[in-house]
C-alpha cells in the first residue's frame, strides 16, 4: 500500500527506497556525532580548567595528595581497552547483517565494561583526597565524576542492547544503531586515556 501519484504531474517515486541507511546517510549518525561534539567540548573544558588552575601553582598536585594505586587504575584502562575488541566484531558484523557475532561481541563487551565499572568503584574508594580538599581535588573529582557517569550509562546501554539482541526479534533497522552504540562506547573508552595519563603522571 502506497501513495499514488496525481494524474497529469511529473513525480519522483520513493516507494522503493530502503527504510534505513548506515553512516553519514543516517540522521542518527549525525545526532550521535553532535552529541559527541558536545561531550568532547565538555571534556576539553574540564581539561582546560585543570591546566588553568595548575598555572596558579608551583607544586602540583598539592602536597599530601595520594592517588588511587596505579595498578588499580591501570586495570580499569585494560578492561576498557579489552572491551574494544568484541565491540569491534559487532561493529563489523552489523553491516553484514550477521547476528551471532553481534550478540557475542555485545555480550563480551558488556562484561568488559562492567568489569571497568567495578574497578572504577574501587578506584574512587581509594583516592586519598576529597573534592573539598583543594581546587586540585575538585577538578580531578569532577573529571572522575563526568567519566564515571558516562562509563555507567554506557555499560547500562550495552547491557540493554545485549538483552534485546538475545531476546529478538531483531529488525534490520537495528543494525545502524548497533554501530552507533559501538562508536559511543569507544568514545567512553578513548576519552578516559588522556585524563588517566594526566591524573596519574602529571607532577611538578
Amino acid at each position, binding site marked *: 500500500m*502506497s501513495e499514488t501519484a496525481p494524474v497529469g504531474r511529473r*513525480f519522483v517515486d*520513493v516507494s522503493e527506497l530502503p*527504510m534505513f541507511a548506515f553512516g553519514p546517510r543516517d540522521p542518527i549518525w549525525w*545526532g550521535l556525532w553532535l552529541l559527541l*561534539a*558536545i561531550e568532547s567540548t565538555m571534556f576539553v573544558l574540564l581539561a582546560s580548567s585543570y591546566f588553568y588552575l595548575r598555572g596558579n601553582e608551583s607544586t602540583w598536585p*598539592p602536597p599530601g595528595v595520594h592517588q588511587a594505586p596505579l595498578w588499580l587504575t591501570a586495570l580499569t584502562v585494560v578492561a576498557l581497552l579489552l572491551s574494544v575488541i568484541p565491540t569491534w566484531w559487532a561493529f563489523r558484523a552489523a553491516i553484514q*547483517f550477521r547476528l551471532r557475532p553481534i550478540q557475542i561481541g555485545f555480550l563480551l563487551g558488556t562484561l568488559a565494561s562492567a568489569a571497568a565499572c567495578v574497578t572504577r568503584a574501587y578506584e574512587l574508594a581509594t583516592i586519598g583526597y576529597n573534592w573539598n580538599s583543594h581546587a586540585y581535588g575538585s577538578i580531578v573529582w*569532577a573529571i572522575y565524576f563526568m567519566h564515571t557517569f558516562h562509563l555507567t550509562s554506557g555499560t547500562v546501554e550495552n547491557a540493554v542492547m545485549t538483552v534485546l539482541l538475545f531476546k529478538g526479534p531483531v529488525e534490520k533497522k537495528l543494525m545502524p544503531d548497533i554501530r552507533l552504540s559501538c562508536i559511543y562506547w569507544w568514545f567512553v573508552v578513548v576519552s578516559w586515556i588522556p585524563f588517566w595519563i594526566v591524573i596519574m603522571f602529571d607532577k611538578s
Partner: protein
Amino acid sequence: MIDLELHVQLAETWRKPRGLWGWLTDNHHTTIGMNFIVTSFVFFLLGGIEAILMRTQLARPENHFVTNDFYNQLFTTHGSTMMFLFAVPMIEGLGIYIVPLMLGTRQMSFPRLNQFSYFSYLIGGLLLYAGFFLNFGPDAGWFSYVPLSGPEFAPGKRIDIWAQMITFTEIGSLGGAVSMIATIFKHRAPGMSLNRMPLFVWGELVTSFMIVFAMPAVMVASSMLASDRLIATQFFNKAEGGDVLLWQHLFWFFGHPEVYIIFIPGTTMMSTLVSAFTKRPVFGYVGMVLSLVATAFVGFGVWVHHMFATGLPELGLSFFTASSVLITIPTAFQVFSWIITIFHGKFIVRTPMLYVLGFLFIFVMGGLSGVMLASTPLDWQLHDTFFVVAHLHYVLIGGMLFPLIGALTYWFPKFTGKMMNETLGRWTFAFFFVGFNLTFFPMHNLGLHGMPRRVYTYLPTMGWNNLNMLSTVGAYVLGVGVLLFMANAVISLRSGAIAGDNPWGSFSLEWFTSSPPPPYNFLYLPTTRDRYEIWTMADDQPLVTGFRPDRREVLITKLMDAFPDHKIETPRPTIWPTLLAGATGIGVITAIFTPWGVPLGMLLAGIALTGWFWPKPPHHELLEEQP
C-alpha cells in the same frame, strides 16, 4: 479524488492529539515550535514587566518604589530571562516551526528530543520564577560572577536556583540544536542542495552549531558553581587554589557567542524579509553565507573583551581588541547587501518591512557603540556603566527583537491562517521605534556621565535626573508597543483577513502549503531546482510520492545535493520524553538542597529512558538470522 483520499489517510496518521494530554505527548515540529514560541513570548512579557519595574524605580532619584534587594533580583531575573528563557528559545522555536516547512519535509529528525528539550526548558523557566515569586530570586546579575555568587557572599538558595535553571535551559537548547542540524542536513526536499537553502535555514544551522560548542561552557561553569555551593568544592576559592577568573573565562566563552547565537538568526530573518518585500534575491548569497560562518568563528575568539577590566596581560588585550573589531567586517557586508537589495528591488512597505528599516538604523548604532567598547582604554572608562546597558540593548533589541517582531508579523498568517492588521501593525512599529530609542539612547549619555549599572537609586545632585526620567517614559512607550502587538495578534486571530497559502507572494517552501499547514505539512512533498524555490519553480515541477500513508514516513536526502536516499519512520505521540524531562527536573531541583538529587535524578531518568526506548512490536524487515 485520489488527493482527497490521501488527505484523509495522512490526516489520520499525523493526527495531533488534543487537550492537556496532547500538549504533553505531541511531538510534531509545529506543535513543539509553537510551544517554544508562546512560552518564550510569555517569558519576554515577564522580563518586560521586570524592566518596567526597574525603570519606574529609576525614574526619580532616591526613589523607594522597590527595595535595593528586590532591584537586584529584578535586573538579575530580567537579564537571565531575556537571554536564557526568551531570546534563545524563541529563536529555536521559530526554527523548529519554520525550518522543516522551508525544507519541504513532514517532520524533524528527532521529534522526541525536541519534546524533551521543550519540557526541560519549561521546567527551568518555572524554577526561576518559583524562586522569584517567593522572593528568593537570584540577585548576582545575569552572569553571576564569583565570589559574589559563591558560598561565602551569597548564602541561601538564590544562586543555586539560577545555576540549575541554567543547566536545564541549556539541556533544552542543546537538544534543539542537535535536532535542527540533523534535520537541515538530511531532510531537505529533493533538489535543495546546500547552496540553495534559504538564508534563514543557514542562520539556524550556524546558530545551532554555535550552541553545540558554546553551551557546554556555561553548563560546566554553572555545575562548578553549584558544587562549590553545595558540596564545598574549591573551584573558585582562592584560599584553596581556586580561581575566580576561571568563572569569567568559562562564562564568557559561552556568553559572547550567545550574543551571536541570538543575533545570527536575527540577520537571516532580515534577509528573508528583505527578499520577500523587495521581490528580489538578497544580493551576494554566497557572501551572506560566508559572513554568517565568519561571524560564528570570530564570535568564539573574542570572549576576553568582557574581561578587559580584570588586569590581563597587555598583548592578550590587543589581540582581543583586534578580533573584536574584526567582527564588524562580515556584519558590514550583510548590511550593505540588504541596502543594495532594497535599492534595486521593488519597495513594498508593509509592517514587516518597517522593522527591517528600524533594524538597519538601530543596529548600526549598536555596532558603533560596540566598536567603541572594543577599544580597551575606553572600556576601562565605561565598564559597568549605563553605556554598556545602552550598547547591549541596541544590539540585542535591534539585532534580534526588531527582526523578530517583523518576522512574527510575516509568519503570523502561516501560523494562524489570518493576516495581522496593517494599521495596528504600523502603530505598533511606531511605538516600538520611538519607545526604544527614547529608552536606550539617553542611557549612553548617562553612562558617559558616570552612572553605574545595577544601582537601585542615585542622588539628586548627580545630574542624572532628566535623562533617567526620559528613559523611563521611553520604557512605557515601548511597553505600549508590546501591548499593541499582542492586541493585534488577538484581534487578527479572531477577525483578521483570511491569508491563503502565500499572502506575501513569498519565495520559500513554507508558503507552498496551506496556512496553517495541515498536520502532515505537504500533501505531496515538493522538489526544487533553484534558490527562492517558489519563484523559480517549473510549471510542471515534480512532486514526491511513494510514502506509506499509514505511517509517519519521512524522506531522507543526501547531505550535499539533497538527492533522495532513504526513508525513516518517525515516532507517534508519546509521553516518555516529557516524563524524562520531569525526572531530570526532580533530580536537579532536589540537588539544590542535597547532593542526593543527582543519583535520584539518574535513577528516575533511567526509568523514563527505559520507557522511551522499550522496543515496539517489530513491523520492519527482520534480520534473516533470529535468536
